[in-house]
């Protein structure tokens, strides 16, 4: 009797360990700071992607409007993945999508937009990565939901369908 019970018991223990690890994987510990206090967007000057003219932050973001700032780059593989979703979000006229082209080569970036479409109302450029630091970004892609010149929410990594519907719900 004892001999039969032991394997059974061991299997159950390992089964529990498996379930705990599996559950543990669902929320991994990749640390993302909470934005409890809504922060003001940074004030900056940059250049327009197409014309190269100097852009001020007040030229891009108007008070009383909702924006999604998307940091992207043509060399970034996940950006390519989230791009079609941005194209669908463009249909929504309650929100304007602003692009921040991060450490990119203009020729490649133009080809990228020609291939996949341009969802952005305005694009400004960040050649040396300093703009992204101003925004508190970790890398590409990253998106910020902005209302009344305040950052409401920050999305690290590529957007997916769930996050897009969350954005659509938030701006209602």
């Amino acid at each position, binding site marked *: 009797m004892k001999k039969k019970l*032991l*394997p059974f018991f*061991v*299997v159950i223990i*390992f089964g529990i360990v*498996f379930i*705990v*690890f*599996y*559950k*543990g*994987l*669902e929320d*991994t*510990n*990749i*640390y993302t700071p909470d934005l409890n206090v809504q922060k003001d967007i940074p004030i900056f000057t940059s250049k327009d992607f197409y014309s190269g003219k100097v852009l001020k932050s007040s030229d891009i973001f108007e008070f009383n409007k909702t924006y999604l700032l998307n940091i992207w780059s*043509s*060399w970034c*593989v996940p950006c390519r993945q989230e791009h079609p979703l941005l194209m669908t979000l463009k249909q929504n006229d309650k929100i304007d999508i602003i692009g921040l082209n991060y450490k990119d*080569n203009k020729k*490649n970036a133009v*080809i*990228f937009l020609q291939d996949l479409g341009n969802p952005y109302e305005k694009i400004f450029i960040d050649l040396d990565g300093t703009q992204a630091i101003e925004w508190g970004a970790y890398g590409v892609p990253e998106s910020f939901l902005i209302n009344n010149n305040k950052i409401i929410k920050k999305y690290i990594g590529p957007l997916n369908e769930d996050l897009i519907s969350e954005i659509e719900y938030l701006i209602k």
Partner: protein
Amino acid sequence: MIYSTIGYYSLFLGLFISLLIVFFSVKNFQNSKIISANILSFTFLQFFLVVISFLCLIISFVLSDFSNETVFNNSHSTKPLFYKIAGTWGNHEGSLLLWLFVLTFFIFIFILKTQNQPIKYKLLTLIFQQIIIIGFFFFLLKTSNPFNHLYPTPSEGLGLNPILQDPALAIHPPILYLGYVGSSIIFSSALAATSLNLVSKKWASHIKRWILISWFFLTIGILLGSIWAYYELGWGGFWFWDPVENVSLMPWLALTTLLHCILVLERKSILSSWVIILSIATFTLSMCGTFLVRSGILNSVHTFANDPERGLFILIFLFVLIFLSMFIFFFFHKNEEKTSHSFSWLSKETSILVNNWFMMYFLSVVLIGTVYPIFLDVMISKKISVGPPFYNKLIIPFLVPFLLMMAIGPRLKWTISKLQDKKYLISLLVISIILAYLILKNFNQSILIYTVLVSSAFYLFFISLRDFFVKNRNISQNVAHFGFSLLILSILFNNLFSSETITNLKVGETFENSDTKIVFESVNQKQEKNYKSIIANFNIYNSNGDKDKLSPELRIYNQPIIVTSEADIKTTIMKDKFIVINLVQNQEFFNVRYQVKPFMLWIWLSVILISIGGFLSILKRRL
């Protein structure tokens, strides 16, 4: 570009060959007079394909081919050549390719070199090993392909994390992997031997060499990691009980226990269940380590690429292996130990067995300390962190009987024994206690526990030292145990007698306390290929008139922009002088930390001595 394609397709072919090997082995298994020649050549071909793939990745790194995603993420054109090559395995994808490289290499050598063992056993080992290899091929191709293509090609890469740009760390992963993956051979062959009911003296002496080889590499690998942490992380310690370190320590404890058990099995053909369980545990703990480190389930100072999808794959694979081995163990393992083999309480077997229990206890402490935070997080979503105090409290007191047992055990004979020359043993014990008391008597805090601890370490030290002059000694065991006593002594003295001074200084300022005077002389700047360095020059005067010039450094790497501090360490036989500077945000002064750490060098030397012990034992088998 072309290399990525070649590398990718050779991986695919390698996977295909795995299937062929399994097919032929199963076919050969039914009709097993001789091992069919094409199995050997397929095993070689598979190894060869993985080598090609690995070489392709190295070439892509050397040529800075940024159309390869792995290269793009981990390299930069201004990086020195040495680190371009080392960068190949400094990342997730490359290190998995290295796993595969070692896996296929070891099984090839195993098939080639194993003689005098039944054909069926060799074939079955090969099949089990191929199951592991297939799992890794899938893992690599499905979730972490090292040859992902990027279009358009970026003009520059993101760079290798500067703290990984260190010579010790460049060779640390390959050596450690030789140890980890070496245990896969032990795992496969233990399963094969169990299913064929071959666990015997003969098998033990055959697998012992493989255990020694993995153990040797694992020990050296952990040592290198620890040296890296000491010189590069700049915290002045060599072991932090960080999850990633624990993960390498757990297989080491299991493997060390296994090493001792296999000796008993070889001599007395007892403890066979232990041997099988430990063989399985060593490899599953290595795999479990990969899972914990790669999945992002744990937070650690060694932040590697985290990806839950990868985690899920390894988790499922790991449990498939665990359940497979449990199935084999429970259904095939015949426990024949009850037949007669009794042994006295005072014998070599008993002492090995007792120390195995201690070792298992240490292993469970480390395992619980590492895994418990995950359980707590999942069960009641509470976050805790387990730090050095937990391990110190639970491990240190039990070192005392462990050390005493280590001193006495090797002197006992098999089966039944008497303690010989008791006078010697007792007088050495008294000497050790007196010596420990004399050293520690000026030390106020918890003198009792430290005296006991230091005297038991001294006891092992003296006994193993004396055993060098005894005839018929087991030299490899003697060296390893002597090294271990030296290690414990150095760690203890290092902890007890370190001193530390922390202060903020501007250039030209002086800090002085009762026994040290630190003068901040000047600052130089230097431009290197991929970083800019700020070198601070200090003069340090000790109370006994010594003067040292130390120049710690701050390096500002350009790709990615990270500041690292390089400690300047002056190593002498008796102590290390360690100084490190850090920038203080928006201030013109530097944060200066000066430490005197006695016996640092001896920690490294004693671990080298321990591994030499293992190495001697490998040589001995060959003679």
